[in-house]
C-alpha cells in the first residue's frame, strides 16, 4: 500500500533519520575529523596527517594491524572448515527426527554471553585449570603447563566465539540444496570430493560469503577474547585503540587507528561481495 500521506511518511522517517544521522553518520565524520587533528607546539589544534604517519612509522602499530588482519582471515577460514561439515551433517546426514533437536543444541551456547564462554575456556585451559588437573591425574603430565595466553588458544577462542555466525547461514543454504542433485551426481559416478567441490560448495556460496563476512568483521573488532585468552602477547589491534583512548588519552591517535580498522573491515567486506557478485542487503538476510 503506497499511500500519498505525507504525515505517515514524516512520522516513519523522522525517528529513523535521527537515529542514523545522529548516531551513525555524524559520529563517524567526527571520527575522521578527530583523526586529522593534532596539537601543535602552541597547544592549538591544527590539521595534520601526523596521526596516520606515526601509524606507518611505528612498526608495532602497523605490524599489529597486519597481524590482526591475517589472523582474522585465518579464523574465518578455520570457522568455515569446522562449520561446513557440521551444517551438512545436520541438514543432510542425520535422521530427520533428530534435526530439530540438534539445531537447538547447536544454537543454545551462543545465547550465553561471550564473557561466560571465554571464562569457561579460561577455567579449562589455565595452569591451575581442569585439563591440566586431569592430565596430571592420568599421569600424562608431570607438572602443569600454561595453555592460555598464546596464539593457538586465542585462535581457538575466536573460532569458538564466531561459530554460530557461520553455522546458521550454512544450514539455511544447505536446506535449500535439492538432494536429487547429489543423487544424480552419485549415479553418474562422481566421487565424494567431486560432489563437494562441484555441487555442495557452489550451491552454498551465498551462505559461505555472508557467514564469512560476519565472522571476519566480528573477529577483527573483537576485544574481549584476544584480551582474556591471548593475554599480554595477543597484540590485537582493538587493544591498541583501547590503549590510545583509555590509557594514553590520545584520542586523535586513537581515532586514526579506529578509522583505519573501519577502512580495513569495509574493504575486505567490499572485496568479498565483489568477488562473489553479491549485494550487502541480500547477504545480511
Amino acid at each position: 500500500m503506497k499511500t500519498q500521506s505525507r504525515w505517515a511518511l514524516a512520522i516513519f522517517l523522522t525517528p529513523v533519520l535521527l537515529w542514523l544521522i545522529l548516531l551513525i553518520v555524524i559520529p563517524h565524520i567526527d571520527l575522521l575529523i578527530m583523526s586529522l587533528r593534532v596539537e601543535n607546539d602552541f597547544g592549538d589544534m591544527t590539521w595534520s596527517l601526523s596521526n596516520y604517519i606515526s601509524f606507518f612509522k611505528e612498526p608495532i602499530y602497523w605490524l599489529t594491524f597486519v597481524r590482526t588482519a591475517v589472523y582474522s582471515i585465518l579464523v574465518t577460514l578455520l570457522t568455515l572448515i569446522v562449520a561446513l561439515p557440521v551444517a551438512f551433517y545436520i541438514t543432510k546426514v542425520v535422521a530427520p527426527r533428530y534435526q530439530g533437536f540438534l539445531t537447538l543444541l547447536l544454537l543454545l551456547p551462543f545465547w550465553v554471553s561471550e564473557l561466560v564462554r571465554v571464562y569457561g575456556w579460561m577455567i579449562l585451559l589455565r595452569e591451575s585449570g581442569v585439563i591440566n588437573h586431569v592430565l596430571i591425574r592420568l599421569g600424562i603430565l608431570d607438572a602443569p603447563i600454561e595453555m592460555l595466553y598464546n596464539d593457538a588458544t586465542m585462535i581457538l577462542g575466536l573460532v569458538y566465539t564466531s561459530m554460530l555466525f557461520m553455522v546458521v547461514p550454512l544450514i539455511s543454504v544447505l536446506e535449500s540444496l535439492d538432494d536429487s542433485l547429489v543423487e544424480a551426481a552419485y549415479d553418474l559416478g562422481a566421487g565424494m570430493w567431486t560432489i563437494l567441490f562441484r555441487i555442495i560448495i557452489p550451491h552454498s556460496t551465498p551462505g559461505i560469503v555472508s557467514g564469512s563476512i560476519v565472522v571476519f568483521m566480528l573477529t577483527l573488532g573483537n576485544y574481549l577474547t584476544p584480551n582474556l585468552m591471548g593475554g599480554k602477547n595477543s597484540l590485537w589491534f582493538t587493544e591498541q585503540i583501547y590503549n590510545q583512548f583509555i590509557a594514553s588519552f590520545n584520542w586523535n591517535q586513537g581515532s586514526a587507528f579506529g578509522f583505519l580498522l573501519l577502512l580495513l573491515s569495509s574493504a575486505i567486506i567490499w572485496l568479498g561481495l565483489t568477488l562473489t557478485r553479491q549485494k550487502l542487503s541480500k547477504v545480511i538476510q
Partner: protein
Amino acid sequence: MIRSLPNSRLYTLSFNVFVILYFVFLFAPLLITCILAFNDSQFPALPWKGFTIEWFTANTPERVGIFHDSINLDSIWVSAQVAFFVSLFSLIVGTLAAFLFEQEDFRFKSLLYFLMLAPLVIPGVILGISILMFSNTLGTWFENHWQLDVGLFRPGFWLVVLGQFSFIATFVTLVVSARLKKFDISLEEAAMNLGASRFQVIWHVTLKFLQPALLGAGAVAFLMSFENFNTTLFLVGAETTLPINLYLQVRDGSTPVINAISFLLILGTSLLAVANLYFGKRSA
C-alpha cells in the same frame, strides 16, 4: 554422502565421531563453568571438594555468595535497566523503520536502507569510540557556548543506552521487516475501505499481525543489550554493566562467585532461548 545414498561404514562412523567431538567442544566450557559453581573450594578449579550452594547463598567473611554480593547485584540491575530501555527504543524505532522501508516510497530510499544496514558491518569498538567522541564534542560545545554542563554527553547510563541502541535497532528493523513482507496487504485495504484511518489500520490490524515478530525481536534485543561488551566498554561510566564488571573480575583473578553468576546466566538465557524458539516455531 547423504541419507538416501549408500554410505560406507567408515564414512558414517567418522562423521558421527566428528560431530560428537564438535558438540563436546561446544559444551565443555559451559558445563565446566556450571559444575564448578557448586564446588566447595575457594578457587574455580578441580579437585572436587564436595557439593555446596554457598557460592550462591553464603554471607560470611570468607565467602560472599552472589545473592549477597552487592557489587555484582548492582551491575545486574544496571544491565537490566539498560537492556529494558535499549529494547524499548529499538522496538519503537525499528518498527517505524520497517514500515518506512516496506510501505513507503521516497527519494534516496536505497541510500537510507544502506545506511540502516551499516551498523551491522561496523565493528562494535568503532561504534563505541565514535559515539563517545561525538558526545564529547557536543558536550564541549555546549559548555563553551552556553556554559551548560549536560550530563547526557558524559560516559554513563544514557550514553550506553544510545550506543547499544544504534546497532540493535538494525536487528529489530530486519526482523520486523521480514515479517511485514509476509503481510497480506489486502487486509489493510479492506480495513481502509471500511473507513479506518491509516493509523487505526496499523494499530488494529498490522501490529496485531506483527506481534510474534515484535516479541521475538524484543527478547533478542534485550539479550544482545544485556550481554554487550565491545560498544559498552567505551561508553560506560561509574555504573558498570554486568559484562564489564565480570570482565574486570576475570582479568584480575576469579572466585567461584563468577561461576555462580555464569550458572544463573546460562540457565536464564537457555530458558529464554527455548521459549523464543518454541513460540517462534508456533507462529511461523
